[in-house]
């Protein structure tokens, strides 16, 4: 493997080194093909395996073939340590991934994203002492890897905490200015490090300060963002982690890292934009104009009452309908009610009712979250309809059942131009003949605005935990 097989611009290169680069090329191709396959339902699973194989290949060849600048390979003792670390990470990661409930998927993805960001930040931090201070570009990529990695880490941890209900939304008008200030500090420290002309040892304090400020910025950046914007933030943080990996790839001039990272960076960015489009909001608006909390105007106050419906009335209404559309939302996920929901759907279908699901692109805490949940509960794929394909059918629908969804069925998005969600496409539940809403309480939705649908003359409410309510409803229908 150490055999010299050629010479490029005065530098000898070995068989091993060439094979390593070839394996990186192969890994990069696997990433691209994997992503491509991942974006089609039929091939998605294969795509995931392709991408994983590419990663596995790159890890193995790096371990076996990587040489440092002096041409020394990785010593056996280090290989042993690395294999240990890989083993520990794999076992923990695998167990966590198998144990996590489908409803908690968004926070899991956030958590993994945080670990990726942390790894990038650590690598950049540890490589800083080796940076060539006379080469501004090399210092710049190290700093960017550190800053972006830290922001992705602390931001994702906050997102994880919020999705898991451990951290609440904190919003204040001041935060916008604090965040701008923190960003300026990050830039100032970075410029100082790049231009001071000091050695990395002398700048040690500055790099740790930069790390600290970046971590704080990550926290402050995600803290005020809540509710419906969460998916966008996760996707954005995901693309940041990719970019951080690319920067670290520059430190080692490693093509697999550069390409893998930037692919995720680009894909994450486009996914972020697609989600923003689904909500009819701009990315800037999401980042600065945090939804919810005290930030936005709360819309007009509603007059009138929410009218409740009894279990038996609801079961009769549903049983004697021709067509029922279920609109699931985050409340369904929280209550783990997907199985109960499917039970209801089966029993109604058995009575000849046409049951369909209307999936809003941003229902839940992640795009496609509802699809994953309902798939887990064995709801057939052909019963799930996207917003645009089911909306025209709404006026012919006998009953729309809204389960734990709120903002995605709020007609204010269409009728009230002053509403914070104005212009967001919604499922036109208000056009149906009857509407049954399952809600935990009388509170507002995640966007913090009143929903006039709940006060509509055609609307009846069933209060309580979605799972219990659905189970009661099922037994009620059975006893009819």
């Amino acid at each position, binding site marked *: 493997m150490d055999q010299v097989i050629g010479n490029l611009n005065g530098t000898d290169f070995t068989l091993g080194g060439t094979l390593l680069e070839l394996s990186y090329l192969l890994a990069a191709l696997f990433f691209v093909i994997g992503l491509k396959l991942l974006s089609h339902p039929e091939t998605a699973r294969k795509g995931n395996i392709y991408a994983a194989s590419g990663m596995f290949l790159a890890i193995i060849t790096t371990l076996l073939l990587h040489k440092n600048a002096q041409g020394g390979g990785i010593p056996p003792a280090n*290989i042993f340590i690395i294999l240990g670390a890989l083993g520990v990470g794999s076992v923990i990661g695998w167990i966590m991934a198998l144990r996590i409930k489908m409803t908690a998927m968004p926070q899991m*993805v956030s958590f993994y994203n945080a670990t990726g960001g942390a790894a990038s930040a650590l690598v950049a931090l540890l490589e800083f002492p080796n940076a060539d201070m006379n080469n501004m570009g090399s210092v710049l990529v190290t700093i960017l890897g550190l800053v972006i990695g830290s922001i992705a880490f602390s931001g994702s941890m906050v997102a994880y905490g919020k999705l898991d209900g451990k951290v609440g939304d904190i919003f204040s008008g001041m935060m916008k200015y604090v965040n701008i200030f923190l960003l300026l500090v990050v830039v100032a420290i970075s410029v100082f490090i790049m231009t001071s002309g000091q050695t990395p040892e002398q700048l040690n304090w500055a790099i740790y300060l930069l790390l600290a400020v970046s971590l704080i910025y990550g926290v402050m950046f995600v803290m005020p963002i809540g509710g419906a914007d969460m998916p966008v933030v996760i996707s954005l943080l995901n693309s940041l982690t990719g970019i951080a990996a690319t920067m670290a790839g520059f430190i080692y001039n490693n093509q697999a890292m550069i390409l893998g990272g930037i692919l995720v960076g680009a894909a994450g960015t486009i996914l972020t934009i697609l989600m923003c489009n689904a909500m009819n909001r701009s990315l800037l608006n999401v980042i600065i104009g945090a939804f919810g909390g005290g930030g936005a105007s709360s819309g007009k106050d509603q007059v009138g009452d929410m009218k409740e419906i009894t279990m038996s009335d609801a079961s009769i209404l549903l049983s004697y309908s021709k067509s029922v559309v279920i609109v699931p939302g985050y409340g369904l996920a929280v209550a783990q009610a997907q199985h109960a929901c499917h039970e209801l759907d089966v029993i109604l279908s058995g009575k000849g009712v046409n049951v369909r699901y209307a999936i809003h692109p941003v229902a839940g805490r992640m795009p496609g979250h509802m699809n994953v949940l309902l798939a887990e509960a064995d709801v057939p794929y052909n019963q799930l309809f996207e917003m645009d394909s089911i909306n025209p059918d709404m006026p012919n629908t006998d009953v729309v059942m809204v389960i734990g969804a709120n903002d995605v069925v709020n007609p204010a998005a269409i009728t009230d131009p002053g509403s914070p969600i104005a212009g967001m496409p919604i499922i036109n539940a208000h056009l149906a003949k009857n509407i049954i809403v399952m809600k935990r309480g009388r509170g507002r939705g995640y966007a913090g605005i009143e929903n006039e649908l709940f006060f509509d003359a055609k609307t009846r409410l069933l209060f309580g935990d979605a799972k219990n309510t659905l189970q009661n409803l099922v037994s009620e229908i059975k006893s009819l």
Partner: protein
Amino acid sequence: MEQILVYFFTYKEAIFIIALSVFLGIEVISHVPSVLHTPLMSGANAISGVIIIGGIILVGHSDASKLSLELVLGIFAIIFATLNVVGGFVVTDRMLEMFKKKKK
């Protein structure tokens, strides 16, 4: 400024790769149905764990004879990145498995 240009020239291949990969990434993803957004995000997230290569190179060439802060942090970098990679791919597979089941 001159240093940045020198850097660009030194790494011009990599920078070309980046510029083109951005379009590649956008092109590959842009027609994805919203059903697949979550698995796709999770799969892409796992790919961003490619930083694991950096961790391996870092620990691979550091002095393993004594337990330094660098070594410990490097080991943590590998563990974190592995979590990202293994957890990410396994979780994605679990999600996609559910879609698969439906088709039969």
